[in-house]
């Protein structure tokens, strides 16, 4: 799968990228919401994994754009910190498909991403 990962934190980005590449996916990275929106508009992705708290446009705006404005049918997984459940609910209301808490469990990430692989294949 071609996956866009959006996070402004270098360690988290490296961790996600490493794990997803290990699972055989192709990974693109955006370090802020504005860059992510541009990439989503211009390129094709099978899945977007996005943090909520981002510079310029936040993760909820990204979910809203994908699900309600872009006309693209891309699954979205929200990355959230523990204790930010209210924001996750907002994400679900906008159409997010799943969420993962940070720091993510590597096995859980693999399994959750695989669900979408099956759905898109």
């Amino acid at each position, binding site marked *: 799968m071609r996956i866009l990962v959006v996070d402004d*934190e*270098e*360690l988290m980005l*490296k961790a996600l990228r490493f794990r997803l590449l290990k699972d055989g996916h192709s990974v693109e990275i955006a370090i802020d919401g504005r860059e992510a929106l541009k990439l989503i508009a211009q390129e094709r992705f099978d899945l977007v994994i996005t943090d909520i*708290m981002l510079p310029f446009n936040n993760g909820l705006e990204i979910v809203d754009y994908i699900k309600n404005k872009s006309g693209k049918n891309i699954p979205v997984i929200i990355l959230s*910190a523990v*204790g930010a459940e209210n924001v996750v609910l907002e994400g679900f209301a906008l159409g997010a498909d799943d969420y993962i808490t*940070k*720091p993510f469990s*590597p096995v859980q990430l693999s399994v959750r991403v695989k669900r979408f692989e099956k759905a898109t294949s």
Partner: protein
Amino acid sequence: MVFIPGLKDILLILYKNYKYMKVEQLRLKYVSLDYLLELSGGDADFILDMILTFLNTAPGYMTDFELLREQKDWYKMSRAAHKFKSSFSVIGSDSLTSYAAAIEKLCKEEVPDVAEMDREIGEMKSLFLQVMAELEDSVKKIKETEA
């Protein structure tokens, strides 16, 4: 076609296993590398890269954070503390993660308790320096295997 490893491949695998074993054997007081060990799936170079990234970026974030405290910019401080939480948890310091969470919470209060916040920041900074020193030492030990 069956892949038959040559001597060079075997030596490389043995070396990588040895390096990973050295990481596993590190006995650390302030951080736990369990998460990175799990995430790495046996790749010591990845762990080293993550530690080096933390060592290179975290001091700058801490300086920015202290500047925000001087400016009493509670909103930006809460965002910075929020970001600290995941960096600290990835690198394996539950105590630093707890300090960051407490500071984030204090910053979000209508009237932040500045004295309490400064106490938390002071303790976080002190532990942060110990974590940095311990990680720097770990990098040296891991790199000894490269000699």
